[in-house]
């Protein structure tokens, strides 16, 4: 592999093989990263990117191959060694202690001390100054359990920086960030790079790869497929290398220019004058921290319309959707589906009235990971699959076979636990359950988060189909291009309110971005 040769690499991994039982996650993986560069590691779900990075961070010992960091052979080292050598990893699934504060989490393992005690006061000061320096803003005294996913992500990065990471590995960091946050992250990474730091970025999003990286390594099926210099490479080249075929990229349309994207609103069949299917009137909702997360908010969704909510995570989107779904109490206001007032109706009653909900955290809320695919496909509708309290297992099985085929859930084995599936296929279970039945309003929160390119294509097609069939959809996504591509109208949520609601055809990403940060209020 002479093409990877360079004199002094920050990271050089050669011929890495790593198997878990019968599963070979890495079969012949190479990675070569020069010091002071931002290196993108791309590939579909299950391509072996995370495993390779865990080998680098000392979490797994490779079965074969060598790992060099700063020209020193460190094959098979432990996490402590990696941290001591300045290699820090930010994981896709957070590794934080929810009951501790942000500052306590950041210092965990290397606490500043005052005598025998942990100097918590100094910890807070240090963490706050690190926040300022790095541009990653979090309340150092907040409990991690109360943070939004995006904020928790920032804590993870802070944790690595606090440990003096010079080589920072980020596993899909932007999956949970909004565009301004992503831009902030790029600023952080570029500053780190200017400081002589090295960054390896695992991501699905090709526009990000182009925007921020210097070099790109593409993996497929556990192997390194190709390596590009970012300059002169198009998203299409990368996508082809990733999946080994041409892919329909919705992102293509916007990746180059953050300009106006006219969605296919004209396809919508419903008359614009139709009565709203969802009417939210003056609702206020509290967050877990006791602050007002949603503040006197009103809006309507008409049949055949997708209302997209753009906004930085933690501005009340989560609480808004939970309140509509009946999972969180409202302080005031009302929610009506068609002409039915939800009032204090239960989650189940709302579902029976025609409300579907794709929750933002499928592993915590959307699925019971140890239940089979078949059992997960009836969650929330269990009362319709049986009589007199007994479950009709035959009907559950038939339903599973139908939905698995219709929504292309793989592997097509309804008896497998949901846990065994890839992220994209897990999401398809949720989509199949919520969209494969009668409904009039769909709440879709982060429907494509952490899902690979092929599944994104599929999920977007399903959402468009539902819209064209006259359903009302409330879409919340941290992925601004997704909101732009799917929505008919876009609302920007900031501080618990809609600061603006615009027809999507009149929106640009730049303009929304300034609303999202509160700059244009």
């Amino acid at each position, binding site marked *: 592999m002479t093409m990877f040769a360079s004199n002094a690499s920050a990271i050089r991994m050669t011929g890495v093989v790593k198997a*878990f*039982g*019968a*599963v*070979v*996650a890495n079969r012949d993986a190479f990675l070569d990263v020069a010091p002071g560069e931002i290196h993108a590691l791309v590939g579909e*779900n*299950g*391509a072996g*990117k*995370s*495993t390779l990075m*865990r080998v680098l961070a000392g979490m797994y010992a490779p079965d074969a191959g060598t790992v060099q960091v700063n020209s020193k052979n460190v094959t098979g080292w432990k996490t402590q060694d990696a941290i001591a050598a300045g290699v820090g990893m930010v994981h*896709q699934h957070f590794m934080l202690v929810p009951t501790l504060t942000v500052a306590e989490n950041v210092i965990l393992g290397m606490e500043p001390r005052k005598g025998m005690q942990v100097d918590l006061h100094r910890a807070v000061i240090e963490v706050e100054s690190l926040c300022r320096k790095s541009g990653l803003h979090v309340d150092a005294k907040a409990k991690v359990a109360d943070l939004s996913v995006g904020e928790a992500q920032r804590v993870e990065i802070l944790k690595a920086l606090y440990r003096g990471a010079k080589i920072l590995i980020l596993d899909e960091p932007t999956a949970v960030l909004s565009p301004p946050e992503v831009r902030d992250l790029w600023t952080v990474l570029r500053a780190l790079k200017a400081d002589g730091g090295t960054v390896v970025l695992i991501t699905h999003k090709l526009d990000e790869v182009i925007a921020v990286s210097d070099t790109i390594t593409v993996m497929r*099926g*556990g192997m390194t497929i190709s390596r590009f210099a970012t300059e002169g490479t198009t998203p299409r080249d990368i996508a082809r290398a990733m*999946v*080994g075929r041409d*892919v329909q990229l919705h992102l293509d349309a916007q990746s180059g220019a953050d300009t106006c994207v006219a969605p296919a609103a004209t396809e919508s069949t419903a008359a614009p004058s139709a009565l709203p299917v969802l009417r939210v009137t003056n609702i206020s909702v509290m967050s877990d921290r006791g602050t007002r997360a949603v503040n006197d908010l009103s809006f309507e969704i008409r049949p055949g319309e997708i209302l997209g909510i753009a906004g930085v995570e933690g501005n009340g989107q989560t609480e808004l959707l939970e309140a509509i*779904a009946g*999972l969180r109490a409202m302080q005031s206001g009302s929610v009506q589906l068609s002409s039915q007032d939800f009032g204090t109706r*239960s*989650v189940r009653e709302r*579902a029976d009235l025609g409300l579907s*909900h794709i929750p933002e955290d499928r592993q*915590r*809320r*959307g*699925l*019971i*990971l140890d*239940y089979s695919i078949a*059992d997960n496909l009836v*969650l*929330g509708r*269990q*009362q319709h*699959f*049986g009589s007199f*309290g*007994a*479950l009709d297992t035959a009907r559950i099985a038939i339903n599973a076979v139908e939905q698995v085929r219709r929504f*292309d859930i*793989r*592997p*097509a*084995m309804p*008896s*497998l*636990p949901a*846990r*065994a*599936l*890839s*992220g*994209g*296929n897990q999401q398809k279970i949720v989509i199949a359950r919520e969209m494969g039945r009668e409904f009039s309003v769909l709440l879709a929160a982060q429907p494509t988060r952490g899902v*690979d*390119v*092929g599944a994104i294509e599929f999920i977007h097609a399903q959402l468009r189909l539902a819209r064209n069939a006259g359903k009302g959809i409330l879409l919340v996504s941290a992925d601004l291009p997704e909101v732009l591509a799917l929505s008919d109208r876009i609302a920007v949520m900031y501080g618990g309110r809609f600061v603006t609601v615009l027809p999507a055809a009149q929106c640009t990403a730049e303009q929304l971005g300034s609303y999202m940060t509160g700059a244009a209020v």
Partner: protein
Amino acid sequence: MSSGMSGGTSTGPAAPPCEQQRKMQSTGEVRAIVQRLAGGFLPPLVALASAAVVGDLLILSFGEAPSTVFRLLVEGTWGNAYGIGQVLYKATTLACTGLAFALASRAGLFNIGAEGQLAAGGFGAALLGTLLPAGTPGLIAVPLCLLAAMLVGAGVGAVPGALRAKFGASEVIVTIMLNFIVLAFLNWIVSSKLRVPETLHTLPVVAGMVPRLADSFAAFRGSAANFTIVFAVLAAVVSWWYLFRTRSGYELRAVGLQPDAAEYGGVRVPRVMLVTMCLSGALAGLGGMNFVLGYKGYYEEGFAGGAGFLGIAVGLVGRNHPFGILGAALLFGTLSQGGLAVNAIVPKQLTDILTAVVILAVAVAVPEVQKQLRAAAANVTAAFYRDARNDVS
């Protein structure tokens, strides 16, 4: 880990031919079933094997031959009808308390209060048995007493259930404390109002006695085995059906696995917790019938004798599966009775130690086996993806 372990893509290059896919699926499903069965039976077997090894060492340290002692143990339990009867009698109570623990456990609740619920159930049965008019036919009296035992047990279970559902109070602490309260209250009421002078027990019941097995099968003569065991087995079957074949069971298990997802799925989580604790208490209470109506005919202070706590071990070894619990109850019943059988040559505490070893071994083996199971499931998926990929290339 998720992306690495599940290895594969949802946008595989192309679907393999239909025929092949079906074949792959069926082998995959068979593999999954085999693995699941292995996961069910392996931990108890590992536990038994380690108990045997520790037992050997202990027996050797007493200067006896393990083979002699184990032969005595088997002969004294499964070697004759009386021994079998005694094992069945002990297993009956343990099955009830084991089921009680397992049902709560499936809902993510740790019911350590079976001891108190068991005693309360026995008291309820005894009280009704003495109050019913003498000569009430068994067909009426037994079901009524059974109902009384279960209702009183459920009542005791309802307390931690309600406190958990309403205030989020830890059911672990509440059930532990409630054991003391319930047992002390029963002792007080029995010793101050109801006992027969010079004894620690109540008046004998006049109706609702459960017939002994010996009444139908003479060979069991002398043993305490009685037809309460039929109720225990029925309770296991109904528990299985409830857990795995009813909507309530589906919701109960969902609450235990992922309460947030259950809530999202329209389950009223606090209600499920309350109902589950009541059912759990009822199952433990049912166990009280075995001693009171099946054996002695009266409530006696301290009759539970730790069977409530041993139910935790039964639940663990039985993997919280109703049928596994029947097996585990027989195992612990055997060890308990076996202690008496070997007492002549080694201290009967030997079997107490074996019981403890089994519990420890299972506590270690179960999480390990579960981990293996998850990895195995991931393997099945990965194999599917790999085959799909190989087919195309």
